[in-house]
């Protein structure tokens, strides 16, 4: 009977499809997943100074922790499957406008002096009040030293950094070399880099949005000019220069609160300039918030303000001022082309 035959054939086809599909996924994971735990990141040669007292505020519920756990760290990239790169096969090629093109292996990289540094990374897609920001302790080799060994030629304005899939980011040479702690990072919060965050080696440049600098799974660096090469995101309308803008966010309260003492708290960031002050706006009146101690100028700072809340609807705002004296602008701008601006504003009903 034809219907029976068809149903048998259909069921078999479904079985083949599911078996091959899921079996293939299992095999892909088994064959290609790299064991990050096999890498021992060791102790850094240059340890970051111990955190000053009061750098980490931990006793306010709802406030972001100073260090973002690796598992909770935001991930924004264009890879549908996480690239799997084994440390044994990893190589970084530095070429283009350099005197001595060079290739460095993972073992050679590990032998270089290792630096510990706290950096808050931010995605340019971060909306005002968004969540594409995270702070971590990164361990790695100084990128500037390596590039100087290769001998950067005059006129090389852009470093095009490619990952194992050929996806490229283009970063201006100047900020990378201006003395900030730009790293070829191998460790994140004391662990080897997770696969989603660029295992085995990624680039961390303090103060620049990720779309120009945060090259995960990096295997290739080409020194060139902005005129000679239009990088992936600049082709798509994003700016060539991408310093992170001074911004701030209210983490708590959210929505409703009980009358009485309410802690307004959040984070503020102005990477590589440092946060100087944070003000909280309550129904249009600005108050100085208390700031956690500064770690490095490359990290965010937690802040809080105890508020005697009265019943009713209230509007809360926040604005930060960086150490260069610049207060974040109230002008609202979308993330494109170089980062959103505006005050994070929330509405709270106090009962």
């Amino acid at each position: 009977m034809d219907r029976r035959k068809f149903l048998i054939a259909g069921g078999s086809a479904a079985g083949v499809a599911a078996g091959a599909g899921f079996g293939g996924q299992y095999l892909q994971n088994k064959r290609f997943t790299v064991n990050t735990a096999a890498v021992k990141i060791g102790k850094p040669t240059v340890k970051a100074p111990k955190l000053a007292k009061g750098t980490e505020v931990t006793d306010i519920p709802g406030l972001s922790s100073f260090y973002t756990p690796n598992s909770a760290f935001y991930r924004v990239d264009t890879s549908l499957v996480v690239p799997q790169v084994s440390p044994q096969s990893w190589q970084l090629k530095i070429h283009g406008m350099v005197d001595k093109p060079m290739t460095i292996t993972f073992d050679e990289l590990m032998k270089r002096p290792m630096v510990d540094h706290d950096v808050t990374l931010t995605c340019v897609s971060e909306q005002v009040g968004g969540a594409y920001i995270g702070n971590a302790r990164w361990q790695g080799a100084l990128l500037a030293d390596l590039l100087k060994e290769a001998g950067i030629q005059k006129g090389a304005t852009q470093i095009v950094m490619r990952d194992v899939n050929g996806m490229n980011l283009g970063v201006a040479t100047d900020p990378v070399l201006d003395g900030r702690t730009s790293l070829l990072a191998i460790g994140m919060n004391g662990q080897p880099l997770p696969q989603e965050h660029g295992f085995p080696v990624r680039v961390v440049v303090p103060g620049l949005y990720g779309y120009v600098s945060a090259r995960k799974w990096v295997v290739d660096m080409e020194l060139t000019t902005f005129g000679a090469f239009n990088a992936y995101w600049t082709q798509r309308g994003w700016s060539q220069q991408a310093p992170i803008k001074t911004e701030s966010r209210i983490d708590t309260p959210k929505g409703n609160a009980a009358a009485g003492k309410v802690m307004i708290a959040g984070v503020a960031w102005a990477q590589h300039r440092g946060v100087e002050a944070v003000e909280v706006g309550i129904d249009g009146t600005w108050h100085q918030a208390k700031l956690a101690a500064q770690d490095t100028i490359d990290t965010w700072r937690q802040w809080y303000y105890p508020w005697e809340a009265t019943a009713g609807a209230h509007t809360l705002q926040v604005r930060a001022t960086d150490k260069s004296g610049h207060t974040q602008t109230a002008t609202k701008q979308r993330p494109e082309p170089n980062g959103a601006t505006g005050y994070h504003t929330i509405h709270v009903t106090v009962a």
Partner: protein
Amino acid sequence: MSFQDPLRRRRPPRYPALAQYEDGYPSYQDTSADQSGGSGYQGFAGLAGAPRQRPPWDDPRQRSLWDTGAQQAVEDTGAGPTLWDSGAQQAVPGSGASRSSRNTDGQRSLRSTGAHRSSRNTGAQRSLLADSGQETTWDTPGQTERGLPRRTSGPFFAAPDDGNDDRRPSRGLLAGALTGFLSAAVALGVANLVAAFVRPQASPIIAVGEAFIDRTPPALKNFAVQKFGENDKNMLLLGMYVTIALLAISIGMLAWRRVAVGVAGIGLFGLFGAFVAITRPESHTTDVIPSIVGGIAGIAALLWLVRAGTPRTLAARARRRR
């Protein structure tokens, strides 16, 4: 489990009533028109108004010509009455020509009066479709019956079409949809399995997805990032699977009418995947393998499903033809 093609039952009969033609042969008559004349061709139902030429198979002047064709065709195929359902075949032992000729490729004698006569000549006035429960005694002089006999082996299936029968309604749509869907699933599943031996990025869904990401307009990308956050990749995959499923279902429905369309459709899918995989940055030549093998597997599944869903007697005809 019961599959019912919803389109089948609702469809009104596509043929006008058969009336007795003045010279003793049946003819078509518009039932909506005045039937007092009761003779002569007055146009197909619903199309009254425009003057129409009498169809050649209904024209006494041309009948001899068409007769010959019909007889010829029936003799040529030798298929006889076994094409559709054996129930009907047994019901009308000698009238096979009237049905078989309509089913057979390239036989222009479909509505030949000769065919009609051949069945009348047997004296058979019985149901042509045992399973439809429709009594179709359409050949009795003086009697007017609605509709020619349907020919299907069930509500679910229709044969892959010969392509030149404009009367074929949308039977078999569900089976066609399932065929397309499952063929695409087999193609993607097998491609994913093969990708485990090449590299994950060679899987067509990944290659096409990443190519799509690269070509996403900034506005859409921002919308996705803001709307779905870090779920944007999962939403993209979901969207791709839904799109592929819809395309595959369409291909399957077409394949049910014309197998070649299905083969071409799935094949193009595979070639597209291979093309995208090999044009990705940092791709390897071997990246085409998952898409190609997946495409072949999908075509095989399609052919297999179409064949499994094809009434056996038609398959037998196909074998005879080879």
